[in-house]
């Protein structure tokens, strides 16, 4: 996050130079138009296109070997998606995953950040890099690595455990969500930790001194000073995690061939992908994608509302 500072400085310097030449409107256009054009072309237009596509369907007739016809079907694709039991099940699974993953991630990242920040931390820089490193491993690679570790016949860890009488098979139906949560945690905990560490570092040291003078111990400092002051960052991390988990896709897709517990529509995103690229029904896929986007919107803004209602000064 520290990289943003020099850019801001740079832009403000350029802004002042620009103002002298062509006035504020020119400067505003210069800085917003390229972004706006790209945003329209690569975000807004495809979303609108997906929404339009989601109201059509490809129909054939008879043996289905004649040419296809594109038919306007209003909200049929949405009705079909929402009346498919496996799609509803995938939504339920996703919420379950959110309930497992979000607290796990936020608590882990906070603890890691607090540990690194603690005055007695040993080699804080080295540990920060070590915790952050998994984030540099692409999701697919990370999942492949964990996939090897999760399958008994290829996993030295599970084989070792089996040798002392502990048989664990992480990719069973009742544990597969935890197996996936573990991968996400491994990849993203370090990233979230960095955000929280940055927030902790920006707490003025006078506050710690004042706390010490008032006789607060380490625990009290954590609960009365550190946590309340990094609350905005914790909210941010929670929000990222909620949105990230709603997009759950790569991990189950890569693990799917290794287990009977992951179907082709295990998560809503997988269901949409499966419809678009395996089953050739891009209209239904567009409807599913829109449903996921709306849910992500509702959940993130719902979460923000709940947090803000408590009347925090910090946000």
């Amino acid at each position, binding site marked *: 996050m520290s990289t943003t500072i020099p850019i801001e400085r740079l832009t403000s310097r350029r802004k002042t130079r620009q103002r002298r030449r062509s006035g504020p409107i020119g400067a505003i256009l210069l800085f917003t138009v390229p972004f706006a054009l790209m945003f329209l072309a690569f975000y807004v237009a495809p979303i609108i296109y997906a929404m339009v596509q989601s109201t059509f369907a490809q129909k054939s007739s008879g*043996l289905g070997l*004649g040419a296809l016809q594109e038919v306007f079907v209003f909200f049929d694709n949405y009705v079909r998606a929402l009346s498919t039991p496996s799609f509803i099940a995938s939504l339920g699974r996703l919420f379950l995953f959110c309930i497992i993953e979000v607290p796990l991630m936020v608590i882990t990242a906070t603890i890691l950040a607090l540990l690194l920040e603690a005055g007695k931390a040993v080699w804080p820089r080295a540990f920060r890099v070590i915790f952050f490193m998994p984030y540099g491993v692409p999701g697919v690679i990370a999942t492949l690595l964990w996939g090897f570790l999760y399958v008994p016949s290829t996993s030295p860890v599970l084989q070792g455990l089996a040798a002392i009488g502990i048989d664990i098979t992480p990719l069973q139906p009742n544990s597969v969500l935890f197996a996936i949560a573990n991968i996400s945690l491994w990849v993203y905990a370090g990233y979230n930790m960095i955000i929280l560490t940055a927030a902790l570092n920006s707490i003025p040291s006078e506050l710690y001194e004042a706390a010490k003078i008032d006789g607060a111990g380490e625990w009290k400092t954590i609960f009365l000073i550190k946590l309340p002051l990094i609350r905005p960052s914790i909210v941010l991390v929670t929000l990222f995690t909620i949105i990230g988990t709603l997009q759950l896709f790569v991990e189950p897709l890569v693990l799917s061939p290794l287990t009977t517990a992951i*179907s082709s529509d295990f998560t809503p995103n997988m269901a949409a992908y499966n419809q678009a690229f395996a089953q050739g029904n891009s209209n239904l896929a567009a409807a599913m994608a829109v449903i996921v986007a709306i849910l992500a919107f509702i959940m993130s803004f719902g979460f923000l509302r709940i947090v803000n209602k408590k009347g925090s000064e910090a946000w």
Partner: protein
Amino acid sequence: MKRIFPAITTMAIVALALSGCSSGAGGSASASAGSDDGGVTELTFQSWVPNVDKAVDLFNASHPNIHVTLETITAGPDGGYATMFSAVKAGNAADVAQVGYDWLPDFVRNDAVEDITQYVSGEIDKFVDWQVSAMTFNDAIYGIPQASSPLGLYYRSDVFKKAGITKAPETWDEFYADAKLIRKLGKDNYIAAFAYNQTPWLIGLSEQAGAKWFTAGSDSWTVSINDDATMKVADYWQKLIDEDLVKVEADMSNEWYKDIQNGNVASWISGSWGDAIIRGNAPKTSGNWSVSYMPQWTAGESATGTWGGGSANVVLKGTKHAAEASEFALWLNSNAESVSTLVSIGAGWPAIEDTSAITSLTNDPDVFSFYNDQNIWKVFAESDANVQNDWRWPPLVSTLYSTLIDNVKSSIDNSTGLSNAFDETQTGMIDALTQAGVATTTN
């Protein structure tokens, strides 16, 4: 900030794919516009068969007027077909492409392939009947069959011997008895894997038992995925699973490769190309393998099946050179030298009727020595000759595949039985076809 946009990007990706302007589709096929510089017709050929360039080179060397550029693409089901469909929609598809027999109905349905009857009708008799049937819809020919995948039983003769089994199982009853003997060898020893990930394998087993899942009537499909033959197969494998006589594991997975290397999985029912998979992934087991004809439901019969039918070369819609493209597809798959090359690179069992001139089938020391000097092609020649001409692939085959896999997986997880998985697939497939406007009936 990286993770705040995925909801939007997912939609963006879907939308981009819809509009057919994904970079893969647009960029890759740009050469297909073809120019006639100096009277040479330029063609683009999309395939994922490894080393197929050797056969393409043969064609180019012997055809001064046509130059074919090979474009290696992702295997069809993994995205290759999606790329082709988008390119056809965008009007910049390749001229010739690789398409599985199972997917051809969907290509016809999406109007993505040229009717090449007029260019090839004179020579189509060179190919095996059932494979020509797989190319023919509404009396028009839509592709040139390249290679089929007749099934056979690959087995570890050393493991079988160790278990006291002296000959390959000739019936499924013998296979069951052998499974018990091999299971006694150790806690990790199984006669075979139950490949829950592999629809073509499940279909091949059902086809062998006489199943006909799809029958084309005059204007509707008769769908019977849960017919008696299929149920017989389902109950048989369920029994093996229940008695822990087969290992429930995905084939061609890391786990499975390890198991065939160390003999924990002692056999594999697969197509003729399975040889390349086994030799490539378990080279140290050379000399330990044999191939036999598939076990039979009724002793003395020679019923067989295929692994997803086979693979064809089609002329994609929108080409400016349909005649030359057809000529290439025809030559590639019927010229003796070319077919011999295709066989040796592991493309599959040749689709031509007369294989007497195909040298790589009669003399292939690399292959035969791996099987203790057995000429394994004799088994597949017999198997291919016995494939029945009554299996039909339906439209929406990908829906069939993913529905069946999902149902099989869930039947294993919830112990509801494989037969239930086929029942569910029957319902699911009829529903999907009906939704797509395809007329269906049931028996």
